[in-house]
């Protein structure tokens, strides 16, 4: 028998909508019952979701949280286009067809316990999943910087978890992360109370510069967000010589590796190659892509 470990790793589930709440800036928090997806999802995994039965294609959406015991899966998405616009109209009690979990997740490096998690806009969800994963690992000391140019889809609260190098007054944090004991800070150019007024990368720089050389050698960077933000994060990581993993997005058709519709150009030892974001990613080493 040939060894085929990839087989039967993705489930198709009719997932009941448990809650579906709208936030400013066309953001939505969606919780569905999808026990098979919940059972094997990892930070960085996504699902391919049927927003509406009348659409010919599905949409990829990152997973924010799962509860393996209860079987639910959480998403945060922005209703940007036609598909997610239709998704935002789906009601509690309705069922969505979801395929997942899909993709190569973030890889955790226990030799680098100081994980810097940077999430921008709808790039926040995988960082929240990663924070939840890391919080239970012995010795892990994750720190999350979340950025948004529309109001955050939660009520920020002043952090009680202190960090080196953070400018005075930058105290706003995400309550969920705070409850987990994972320090977080928020950044925005919009001047929201308690948030750092500037780019996520500039706030990261404040923190990195306050670390000792030994501490800095323990840092690893994870990021998900808009392309320009990822580019800036990759640049920062290379400047500080830190390993960096980024989660990418691209239009998708099959999401199982069958169509090569979702590729990104990566650098390899044998020259440029086109890698599928759906199954070769969505997580890539930053220096491969930027």
């Amino acid at each position: 028998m040939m060894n085929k470990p990839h087989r039967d790793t993705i489930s198709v589930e009719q997932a009941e909508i448990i809650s579906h709440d709208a936030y400013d800036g066309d953001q939505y928090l969606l919780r569905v019952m999808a026990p098979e997806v919940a059972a094997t999802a990892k930070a960085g995994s996504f699902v391919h979701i049927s927003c509406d039965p009348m659409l010919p294609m599905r949409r990829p959406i990152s997973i924010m949280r799962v509860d393996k015991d209860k079987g639910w899966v959480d998403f945060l998405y922005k209703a940007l286009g036609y598909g997610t616009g239709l998704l935002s109209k789906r009601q509690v009690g309705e069922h969505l067809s979801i395929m997942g979990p899909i993709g190569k997740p973030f890889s955790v490096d226990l030799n680098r316990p100081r994980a810097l998690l940077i999430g921008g806009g709808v790039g926040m969800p995988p960082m929240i999943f990663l924070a939840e994963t890391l919080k239970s690992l012995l010795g892990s000391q994750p720190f999350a910087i979340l950025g948004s140019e529309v109001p955050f889809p939660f009520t920020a609260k002043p952090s009680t978890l202190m960090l080196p190098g953070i400018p005075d007054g930058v105290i706003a944090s995400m309550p969920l992360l705070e409850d987990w004991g994972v320090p977080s800070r928020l950044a925005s150019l919009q001047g929201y109370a308690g948030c750092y007024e500037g780019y996520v990368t500039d706030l990261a720089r404040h923190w990195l510069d306050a670390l000792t050389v030994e501490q800095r050698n323990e840092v690893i960077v994870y990021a998900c967000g808009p392309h320009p933000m990822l580019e800036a994060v990759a640049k920062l990581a290379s400047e500080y010589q830190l390993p960096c993993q980024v989660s990418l997005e691209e239009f998708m058709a099959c999401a199982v590796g069958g169509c090569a519709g979702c590729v990104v150009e990566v650098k390899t030892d044998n020259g440029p190659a086109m890698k599928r974001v759906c199954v070769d990613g969505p997580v890539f080493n930053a220096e491969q892509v930027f």
Partner: protein
Amino acid sequence: MTNPALSNDDLAMLATDFCGLNFQTPLSLLSGCVGFGEEYTRVKGYSNRDVGAVCLKGTTLEPRLGNKPHRVYETPMGMLNAIGLQNPGARHVVDEILPTLDFNETRFIANLSGSTIEEYAEVARIFDDSPIDAMEINISCPNVKEGGVAFGNDPDMSARVVAACRKVTKKPIITKLSPNQTDIAENARRCIEAGTDGFAVINTLMGMAIDIEDRSPIIGNNQGGLSGPAIKPIALLKVHQVYQVCRGHGIPIIGQGGVTTAEDAIEFLIAGATSVGVGTALFYDPLVCKKINAGIVEYLKRHDMSTVSQLSGSLQLNT
């Protein structure tokens, strides 16, 4: 049992002969939608055994990186794609990929492309010396600068490509025709003379989508191939037209373009197809082939037919 809903008697109704190959169901999975045969097996409940054949991704002599992103985009009842024949080259496919496929599961068909007639023939030669069950000649790819549809829209060139491949292989040759041409029937006639054993009808239609904020095409390649339910009526007519040429020669057709349901598949069979291709529909429902198989069986029973071949070409035109 991989077809839990269907009994062995049901499965026997679905079995069909295509170019001398035994297809366990009349369905074929279409080139470019299912990678190199293993990708969809990631999905629980999916099985290559639900189809008669799996057509592998378009393959050229040398590896190709393909087009720049974006490569796919949803359009009304369909999608545009411009992959640009990304593939690792024929040698790699034969040496590294075919040995990993389980030929007990289904028939595997290579999909050949090239920029010159010689390249097509060379790729055919490489696949001839492999376990591949048949070769599909793709002279209808709309997403590459040379070869592809440029050959397929010219009956003369089409026939020359077929003849060149015919010379180097005895394996079944299936010629994949383009809908982007004036007289598809004439092209089919020429390809039969040149030695094709079967046809695939149709490949995608050329199309465009524009980002009105940027005022630039959304697809990296500017234009792409349109597939999905939007093209089904066009595909059905083309299958009907090609069938008029094929019926006298006993040459079978893989009818394709927008098949999503059993009813769609039955329409293609009635129009003259022996096998029915499923591509874009998998993207929405990876388990769709089980449903199509069950729907065909139900239809055959309801119409007192014992095999799917009784349906093929049973169209009664209005007079």
